[in-house]
């Protein structure tokens, strides 16, 4: 059984159909890159997988380990092992990162029927994870993403990814707002989390990110469909020739 199967997915926002029958299969251990021009539906796909309100699925399905993901609340999807790293992580004033992560992790564990982590148990775990990713401890004491730089926000996303240990990670335009050094640090974090059990779906506009996170498969999206799939070389080809060639194909 595949980890994540998107089958002939059609999605509308109000009167506009954004995805016109998208199919994608992701197996454990694989890293898939989804590339495409602005407006091709890349972010819509990530939002629909995570369960963001405001999208209407008119046809098709999304299965996660064979279960119908679209029937689940966003928090249930997270507890099952779906993680979306946001393109623009939000700031939550008045809620410390530490409290937020502790509450979220325990909520996930509760949904899975696992025991709750006490404060000391959680502290130990989050410290280990932060240390392994070279993330400074003081970030945990601050309000969630409040006053964080673009790079710090992405590192916070990666910290959460490491803490929640999801089965599939969707990285939505992880490179936006990052300079080259911050990009490398973020990519190192992602690479550290690659494992034979975990799949990654890397959504990006530019090939640049794929120099740091080497994908197994590259899919080109245009106008709400996957128009071409291939190996990592496809990204280089795109870098040279641009997306224009696919506009007609779609």
């Amino acid at each position, binding site marked *: 059984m595949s980890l994540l199967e998107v089958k002939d997915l059609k999605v509308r926002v109000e009167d506009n159909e954004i995805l016109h029958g998208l199919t994608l299969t992701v197996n454990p251990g694989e890293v898939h890159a989804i590339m495409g021009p602005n407006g091709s539906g890349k972010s819509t796909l990530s939002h629909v997988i995570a369960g963001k309100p405001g999208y209407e699925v008119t046809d098709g399905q999304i299965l996660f380990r064979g279960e119908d993901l679209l029937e689940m609340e966003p*928090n249930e999807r997270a507890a099952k092992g779906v993680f979306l790293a946001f393109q623009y992580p939000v700031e939550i*004033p*008045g809620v410390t990162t530490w409290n*937020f992560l502790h*509450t979220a*992790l325990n909520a*996930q564990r509760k949904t899975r029927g696992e025991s709750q982590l006490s404060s000391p148990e959680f502290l130990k775990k989050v410290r280990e994870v932060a240390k392994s990713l070279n993330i400074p401890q003081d970030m945990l004491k601050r309000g969630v993403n409040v006053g964080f730089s673009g790079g710090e926000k992405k590192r916070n996303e990666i910290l959460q990814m490491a803490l*929640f240990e999801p089965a599939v990670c969707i990285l939505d335009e992880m490179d936006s707002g990052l300079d080259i050094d911050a990009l490398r640090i973020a990519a190192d974090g992602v690479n550290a989390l690659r494992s034979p059990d975990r799949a990654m779906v890397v959504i990006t506009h530019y090939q640049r990110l794929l120099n740091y996170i080497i994908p197994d498969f590259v899919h080109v999206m245009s106008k709400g469909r996957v128009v071409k799939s291939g190996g990592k070389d496809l990204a280089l080809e795109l870098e040279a020739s641009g997306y224009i060639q696919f506009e007609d194909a779609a």
Partner: protein
Amino acid sequence: MNLVLAKNETGRALSDSFAIARDRLPGAGKVAEARSAAFEAYERTGLPHRRIEDWKYTDLRALMREVLPLADAPDAAALKRAAAAVKLQAIKGARALVLVDGVFVPKLSEVGGLEKGLTIRTLRDVLETGDATLQAQLFSPDNDNPMVALNSAMITDGVVIEIANGVVLKQPLQIIHVASTPAAAAMSTRSLLRLGRDAGATLVESYVAADGAKTYQAHDSLVVAIGDNSRLDHVRLVEDSRDAFNISSAVVTLGAYAHFNTFSMTSGAAVSRYQATITFAGEHSGVETNGVNLLDGRQHADRTLFMDHAVPHCASREVFRAVVDDRGHSVFQGRIIVRPDAQKTDAKMMTRALLLSDEAEANNKPELEIFADDVTCGHGATTGALDESLLFYMRARGLPEKEAQALLIQAFVGEAIGCVVNDDLRELAIAATQRWLEARR
């Protein structure tokens, strides 16, 4: 006297209940005269209604309809129920002073082992035997406000606390108002706290219902005088029955170099109003007055503040937050007046409301009246809903919707709770918020 005005909406003559109660009310001579004058003042308007500017959002004629007769003194069964409620509310380490159905109950209170310089008497005792100065101070609240006047006329009991010069109390004081009567009845209480010079105290006021008490009316007031170079930390928590009324007033005066940090949270009662008048009578004093309304169902809660900068060099801060769900209605009226002599006044007021449903309502009415020219004053008001993008982010991290909302609500009210300086009092406010959030889940 105009008998037409003296009737309320249901047609019952208000003067009847005063006439019936009068013989039971403590105090003769000057006290009885003060009561009669207060009742006459009340009768001129009766229950305040929306055509009176100060009451336009809280129309007691429509919401309350009538003033109920005073509750009977609690019997043994009532005291037993009250004792159970007190047990839940009493703060560890605080000196509990308990009023049940408007009567001070020594048996449920801690009246022994008073710290040196601390005097506690009952209002009844002071009105019956006390000195004229204390009595005058007890009747100092302004009868122009009809609900203050009504309260002045009907007060049965309360606590009168005096703290001598130079005495800083170690043990917090907690006045617990318990309603235990299952009858539809009213309680009318008033307490007084006098802090001398260089003194300090911590006061908590709690309003709760014992098992079985539902449709009562609590009419209460607190008179506070803070002497020069003294400090009062104050928290009040209104967790009355969801069918009850709580109409309370506070009249606070500060001397020079004095400080008043006060926080009020209303999560109980069907209809409530807390009206506070704070007057700076001495220079270089400071006030932080903060509050939170947590409302749902059809609750109505009104917080009305009058901050009187009568003298120069004083600072005041007001941070108010309202969280309103279902068909709840929160009212905030904040008026700051800076008198002509009050140069170098620094006064700021910020009120924000969070509406959790389409039918929730919040009225914010901040007012600044400035008659001095060298001052720093400001106010702001916002009303909004929970940010959907924050909620989705939190849900995508595994939090069920209600839990995500709870974290955001805690953060929102935390801006007001964070202004409580005393650690123990802040914890109380956080715990009260927690109780409200848990009841919502």
